[in-house]
């Protein structure tokens, strides 16, 4: 644990071009500020891992940060397509993007297997699905006790996990509240992990509550990033900006409009250098 760093320093120190990176958060607590810092620092050749790529990966892919995407549902929830993701897959802009496509169940099992230190996840899935024909990582094993054929996928072991959470205490213990998604598994599955938080507090107030707390010693760094999940939401702090999710559709449809938006709102937004 390097302690509490600025977002700039946490990304500079623990994320490198070429890394496999999982920015997780299931609709809730999506680490946008950290993704924007990765764009500003010009990191490239990343393998991006995320169950639901959402707008943050649309932005990172449109900026050319990624060479590969591992995912299970790639859309703008309730709105439609991720146009930068589609442009990269269908037309190779701004660079070609390899995809490794799974189901949610497979990704969830694969993170849990990674957290458990297992080489692969075994589950009852992909039965009769064409996904097995287009993703060579989807294989099968026979149960040695019952003979049942089960699906197997490699455990997810990202180089870096990045999550956003509500609070950290001064020692760097992190509280995740509300819809907790797959963040705990992503952090425990990864070699390095960064948590951005809404605020640093003296006391998490979690003693006796059985809340979801990631101990400081499971993290590489904690970085304060108030509002760091916007336009997604942080339970107890702010709501989801549904209007922005809707507006993103028109911004992302056009390459020039997208680039102008990134320049104005990310590249020239000053960052969070402390």
């Amino acid at each position: 644990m390097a302690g509490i760093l600025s977002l700039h320093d946490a990304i500079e120190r623990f994320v490198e071009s070429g890394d496999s990176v999982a920015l997780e958060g299931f609709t809730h607590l999506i680490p946008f500020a950290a993704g924007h810092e990765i764009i500003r620092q010009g990191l490239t050749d990343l393998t991006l891992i995320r169950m639901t790529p959402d707008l943050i990966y649309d932005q990172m892919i449109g900026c050319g940060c990624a060479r590969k995407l591992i995912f299970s549902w790639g859309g703008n929830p309730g709105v439609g397509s991720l146009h930068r993701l589609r442009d990269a897959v269908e037309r190779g802009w701004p660079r070609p993007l390899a995809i490794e496509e799974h189901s949610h169940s497979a990704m969830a099992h694969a993170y849990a297997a990674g957290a458990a230190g297992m080489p692969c996840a075994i589950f009852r899935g992909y039965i009769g699905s064409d996904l097995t024909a287009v993703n060579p990582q989807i294989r099968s094993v026979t149960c040695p006790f019952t003979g049942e054929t089960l699906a197997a996928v490699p455990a997810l072991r990202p180089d870096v996990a990045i999550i956003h959470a509500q609070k950290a205490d001064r020692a760097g213990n992190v509280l995740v509240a509300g819809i907790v998604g797959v963040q705990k598994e992503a952090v425990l599955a990864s070699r390095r992990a960064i948590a951005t938080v809404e605020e640093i507090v003296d006391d998490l107030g979690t003693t006796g509550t059985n809340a979801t707390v990631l101990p400081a010693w499971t993290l590489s760094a904690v970085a304060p990033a108030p509002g760091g999940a916007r336009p997604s939401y942080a339970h107890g702090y702010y709501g989801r900006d549904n209007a922005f999710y809707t507006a993103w559709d028109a911004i992302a449809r056009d390459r020039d409009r997208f680039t102008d938006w990134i320049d104005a709102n990310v590249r020239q937004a000053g960052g969070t250098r402390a």
Partner: protein
Amino acid sequence: MTWSASEMMTVAAARVLTSDDICFVGIGLPSAACNLARLTHAPGLTLVYESGTLATKPQVLPLSIGDGELFETALTTVSVPEMFQYWLQGGRITVGFLGGAQVDRYGNLNSTVIGDYARPKVRLPGSGGATEISTSCQRIFIVMRHGRKSFVEKLDFLTSLGHGPTGRERRELGLRTEGPSLIVTDLCTMRPDPQSKEFVVVTLHPGVTAESVLENTGWPIRFAPQVQETPAPTEAELAALRDLNARTARAHGVAAAE
């Protein structure tokens, strides 16, 4: 009283759910139907969303699968791996409600690509939870708008198994779950033939002709020997649905799925 084809579809889908069901809900049309059922004839219906919210009672329809509304009104919320491991794979869910870009006559669904996978004409969002929902829930209801591009002779990609490409694969694979047992559209409702598993039209919505179903289906769809008329939406059903949609529009500032 008048109603739209979309309202008829949502009402017809809601009616098949009961207070005894534990239902795995997708966003959009399924979510509207499931919440309408809970607000009308099935107050005990248990709704589960893949974000981990168990027994949630949203007052407005969520825009995304993980809206705060779902967490704040849930009995409890579990992690996403627990949702897929214990609750879905563990066999705790009685009904899965699915849609897709394409469905075939055996209730197989495509939500992945239109065209070739490597060079797609349209890249769709992908499986999400659907691939395992379709095999793990005790039964599957499908709700989709009718049209020749969506009700197709052959899927471009089979994301989620229905009864299989020939209607026999599901049984041959040894699945113990029932699979798709109902399709509700804006024109009609369909059930699978008990032997062949081919979906046949069992009710036509009021004012809909068999010809319009034929014109809007990409395979020569068959009809049950006695096709009934779908009972029209009641005033109570329409009032509950319109209230739900109005609340949702106020909350999100956008129109909800009907």
